[in-house]
């Protein structure tokens, strides 16, 4: 992994634990805000909006704050915190400059807060998942460039074959920068109409596939072997997954706009590449289940592993769902329905948020230097989150089918709203469960931080050397 000639550095010389803590604190703060926005939207749908008539609390605006706070506030901060732990330990080199890391941290929080403020005051950009006001886009773009430079510096000094995690991270730094530029600048300033719509489709899905997916899988390839104390089943297969993602993913975003004026050959291309990605995903999932084979009890006793593998099951389900729903026949039924909302929640919370929360569950005791205040509260956090997202996604997916059938039968619009009410009520309670899980987690972190019990050295997950 690294030059044998270099002296072996210590963990404290490599990882700025204070910064990892800051990122995690910021991530959880934005998750809290995002979930509040989600609850507001859920209450609006069941006609119980507590802020009716107040413009800046309009559910339409808070829906955008909900999605942007998750993507740029929670996931981005969570990933950056994890990267500050994983990259220096993998490369045995610190990031390029710790002062730059602090600058990026402050600048990124400013970007996310300004985005929330801009959205609340009605300055949204007309681009799904890219509603960040146009005046913030250049700042965010510079921030992404600095992130890439800061983390790619230690990786670029590596010699010899790279571990798969670093391949994913390298690609993510490049992809995220390019994806953000493509989505936020091309439709705004260079192309219009259907062409802008097609680019918007690429942007929406590339944010998932080329920003959060490579970072998420990269972190799984790092943390799962460490926690299971054994190497990944097949490193070769993991590289097949990486290169498959690189070549099949970038075209599939257009499947968001099937049955639109975008040329059909482009729509079919997106459908085919989406189905191809399902095969790639299968290789990745096989690899991880091959790794845990023979150590299945870890799912029961090791909470981070349970978070990770639950997320992987959801990932496979959501990709399988994706391969089906992009077919033209299926799309005709579920387009514009809550099926899509359920699918999006399953991806963003059921997969990537669960992975980050699992990593936090593993890292917080190491960062704070104390055992968890309550293991039982950690269990409550997991079960409230897992059951909550399972119920919410299942409920919305089913509700989407009812809406689609209602529209296909040419019933009046009101009929589809009426049929949706039971599903929207269930969604409120599923959301409350997930929100409750987060509150339990925050309380557990607070009590752990205040506690005095030092982390026992033996309980730290010191892996045995690989055989």
């Amino acid at each position: 992994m690294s030059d044998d000639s270099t002296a072996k550095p210590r963990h404290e010389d490599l990882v700025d634990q204070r910064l990892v803590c800051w990122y995690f604190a910021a991530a959880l703060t934005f998750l809290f805000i995002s979930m509040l926005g989600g609850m507001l939207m859920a209450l609006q749908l069941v006609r119980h909006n507590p802020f009716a008539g107040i413009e800046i609390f309009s559910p339409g605006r808070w829906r955008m704050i909900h999605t942007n706070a998750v993507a740029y506030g929670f996931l981005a901060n969570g990933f950056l915190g994890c990267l500050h732990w994983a990259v220096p330990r993998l490369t045995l080199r610190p990031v390029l400059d710790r002062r730059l890391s602090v600058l990026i941290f402050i600048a990124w929080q400013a970007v996310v807060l300004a985005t929330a403020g801009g959205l609340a005051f009605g300055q949204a950009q007309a681009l799904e998942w890219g509603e960040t006001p146009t005046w913030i886009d250049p700042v965010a773009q510079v921030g992404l460039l600095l992130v890439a430079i800061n983390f790619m510096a230690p990786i670029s000094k590596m010699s010899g074959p790279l571990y798969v995690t670093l391949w994913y991270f390298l690609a993510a730094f490049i992809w995220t920068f390019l994806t953000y530029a493509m989505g936020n600048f091309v439709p705004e300033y260079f192309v219009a109409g259907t062409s802008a719509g097609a680019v918007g489709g690429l942007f929406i899905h590339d944010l998932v596939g080329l920003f959060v997916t490579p970072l998420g899988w990269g972190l799984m390839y790092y943390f799962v072997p460490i926690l299971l104390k054994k190497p990944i089943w097949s490193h070769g297969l993991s590289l097949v997954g990486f290169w498959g993602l690189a070549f099949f993913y970038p075209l599939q975003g257009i499947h968001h706009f099937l049955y639109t004026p975008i040329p059909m050959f482009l729509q079919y291309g997106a459908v085919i590449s989406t189905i191809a990605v399902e095969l790639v995903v299968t290789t990745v999932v096989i690899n991880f289940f091959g790794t845990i084979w023979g150590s299945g009890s870890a799912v029961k006793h090791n909470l981070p592993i349970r978070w990770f593998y639950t997320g992987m099951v959801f990932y496979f389900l959501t990709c399988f769902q994706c391969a089906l729903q992009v077919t033209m026949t299926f799309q005709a039924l579920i387009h514009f329905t809550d099926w899509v909302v359920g699918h999006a929640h399953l991806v963003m919370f059921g997969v990537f948020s669960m992975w980050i929360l699992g990593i936090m569950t593993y890292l917080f005791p190491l960062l704070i230097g104390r055992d968890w205040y309550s293991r039982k509260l950690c269990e409550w956090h997991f079960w409230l989150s897992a059951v909550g997202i399972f119920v919410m996604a299942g409920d919305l997916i089913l509700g989407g089918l009812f809406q689609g059938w209602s529209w296909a039968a040419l019933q009046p619009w009101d009929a589809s709203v009426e049929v949706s009410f039971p599903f929207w009520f269930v969604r409120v309670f599923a959301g409350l469960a997930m929100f409750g899980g987060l509150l339990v987690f925050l309380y557990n972190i607070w009590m752990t931080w205040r506690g005095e019990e030092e982390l026992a050295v033996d309980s730290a997950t010191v892996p045995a050397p690989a055989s």
Partner: protein
Amino acid sequence: MNDRKTPPRATFVITAILAVVILIPSMLGFANKFYELILLCRGEVDGAFAITPVVNYLLASLGFFCLLCWAAFNGMFHDIEAPKRKMLETEWQLDSETAAQKR
């Protein structure tokens, strides 16, 4: 790593045949479709709609194809399973040192 042998002649022949059978028709097909796309863009409004996302995809894929070639020619896929063991050894060393300091 040091005693790498020249692949057997049969392996070379099979690889060459597969390359010819698979790559040449694929490249011809791709070139043909790309030519159609260019004609479409020049001739119809529909084609212009397609050019931005297709060019985006082609540029991204070209970049990664170059990266794949660079990785292959720089030995990134030699001893392909070694990095997974090296990663765990590095982790074990870092954690052991931290644990020793705490004791």
